[in-house]
């Protein structure tokens, strides 16, 4: 399990845990980001802002937040 902030572009990962306050976790869950969901790293923090793909959606994520989402390689 690694924090999202160290994942690399093109990788497909599965969300394992989200750290943070209840409201924050809940909000992410309802946006469709909850444990078990597969996401794709479209742009990693190294190459600019963090962008993740969830099916047909794209989310930008602040750098601080990428450290709070833990993922594991999927498949």
């Amino acid at each position, binding site marked *: 399990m690694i924090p999202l902030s160290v994942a690399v572009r093109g990788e497909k990962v599965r969300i394992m845990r989200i750290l943070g306050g209840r*409201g924050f976790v809940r909000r992410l869950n309802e946006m469709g980001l909850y444990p078990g969901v597969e996401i794709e790293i479209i742009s990693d923090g190294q190459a600019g802002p963090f*962008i993740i793909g969830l099916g047909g959606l794209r989310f930008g*994520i602040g750098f601080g937040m990428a450290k709070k989402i833990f993922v594991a390689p999927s498949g």
Partner: protein
Amino acid sequence: METKKLKIGLAGNPNAGKSTVFNQLTGGRAHVGNWPGVTVEKKEGGFQYQDYEVSVVDLPGIYALTAYSIDEKIARDFIIKENPDGIVVVVDASNLERNLYLATQLLELGVNVVIDLNMMDRVRSKGMAIDTKKLFQIFGVPIVETVASKGEGIEELKEAIVNELEKKRSPFRIDYGEDIEMVINGLEKRVSISGYPSRWAAIKLLEGDREILEIAKREGEAIESQIVDSKKRLEEHLGYDLETALVERRYAFLSGLIKESVGKKYDLIERLDISDRIDRILVNRYLGIPIFLGMMWLVFQFIFTLGGPLSDGIETFMGWLGESASYEIESLGGSKWLSSLVSDGIIGGIGSVLVFLPPIFLLFLAIAILEASGYMARAAFVMDRFMHALGLHGKSFIPMLMGFGCNIPGIMAARTIESEKDRILTILVNPLMSCSARLPIYTLFAGAFFADNQGWVVFSLYLLGIVLAVIVARIFKDLFFKSEVSPLIMELPPYRMPTVKGVLIHMWERGSLFLKKAGTIIFAGVVLIWLLASLPLGVQYASKESFIGQIGSFFSPLLKPAGFGFWQAGVALLFGILAKEVVVGTFGTLYGVEKAGLTNVIQGVFTPLSAYAFMVMSLIYIPCIAAIATIKRETNWRWAFLAVGYSLILGWLMAVGIYQVGKIFI
């Protein structure tokens, strides 16, 4: 025929095309205001269909009804407290699964819903179809397909709103699985909260919804320990927390539903491919910031090179109008006082509102284009790390930059920041960005005293403003907004071509709001200053004997420690509240010289040190009337007063500090 009235709300995820649907339904005519108590924009419009008059309220873009974010709370309060006849959920049909989540939330609450599958063109262009009959069977509510950007399906949507909304339907329920259902059923039987469906209340209680929990307590339900117990048991059984489990089950339900109602495998790789590739360049690590700054430079040029001449034109015209009016009045035998009231007070007041129109409208045009194209959402992320280091939000950058042109559009540009705290903070420090109206003051004084280093002196003032903004933002954050910077996570819409109509409507809505609200305050302020300068009757305009001269004399001892303790400086600063560029002209009037002779006069009464202190004072002290009015318009009087208060104190302290410390060395 008697007209019947209906009130509906328009809900949907961000980027689902909600505002386009709103514009289509209402014909683009909307009343824009704020939701009570907060600075979130509220839009209301309406349309007539058959013998119905339907009023439409645009709700903020949301994902759910949890009420953790201010936007969700607004939407939820509207639905629960204002009791609308129904809600239209605008859904991005190319992202059904994520977009239907909100619809399930509304249906669980028992709201009358129409589901609008918007952006159907994207689905069709992939050769796919959505089985709306199937969706209708499962949800039991009308399903309408639209392509709002082209106006397709809008008539059908109106028809559904008017004729289908209020038909009685069987309650919608999601099966949460045996284990969870057992707990829900148990709770449901024991809880009854007036006004809410009991199943919904039970689910919300399990989710730990604070509002519902409080209502339950108020109504004397002794359920808290019971909830905690059953929740604990369930979580042990599930292996993780119940809130996540509930969200997950809802998504599982939706995912099954999509499989049944959409023919082919459902993704839109191609469209995103282009968008992702653009992102690889526009938000690239090395290119991201230069491209962003380049864009900002373009926007800046667009607003001030195009807007500047227009504003000048308006100013010249209003000046001419004022002069001819006073000439006419005096030749008709009117008193000098009356002609001054008309030309300096009324026409001058209207003029000072109108000069802001070109930059404001151009700013909102630029912002609307950036937003509609999808770039605006990215820009926040490009600047995020840098702005965080300064204690501000990624989206604060654009308002700050605009402030260098004029603080009014700068403050207005802060509208794009969703978090209220970050927005207020950005607005409060915006006047410290040295606007172009302060440049004439710098040019006059720096030219008179620092002719060899003029550029550096002016640059130092701009820099001082930025440094102070960062410090003040830090302090205010600790004082008023103790919580952390709001976490930045945002859905990024795919890049798309903005439509002319959508962009113009957006520009008009925001621009006219400035005219209506800030305009009246600016006008009143200008007239007030005019009165102070012309009364008591018979005095020469803005002379030492006028009220404003008396006020200037009264305050001049206070300005003495800063090195400019003479009444003319006090009056010039008072007039500067009208508009900063007026300071220079006021010195001219008070000393009875033209612009050319002003340098000599200034050199006589100021020293280089007190001149620098005066420039610092002009930079910081009290925002101009227009800025104060705009701050009030965008927040409330409390923050507007704070902006006036802190800048006055800070300006005075800085000017005095510089003069006193400087005196030791010189």
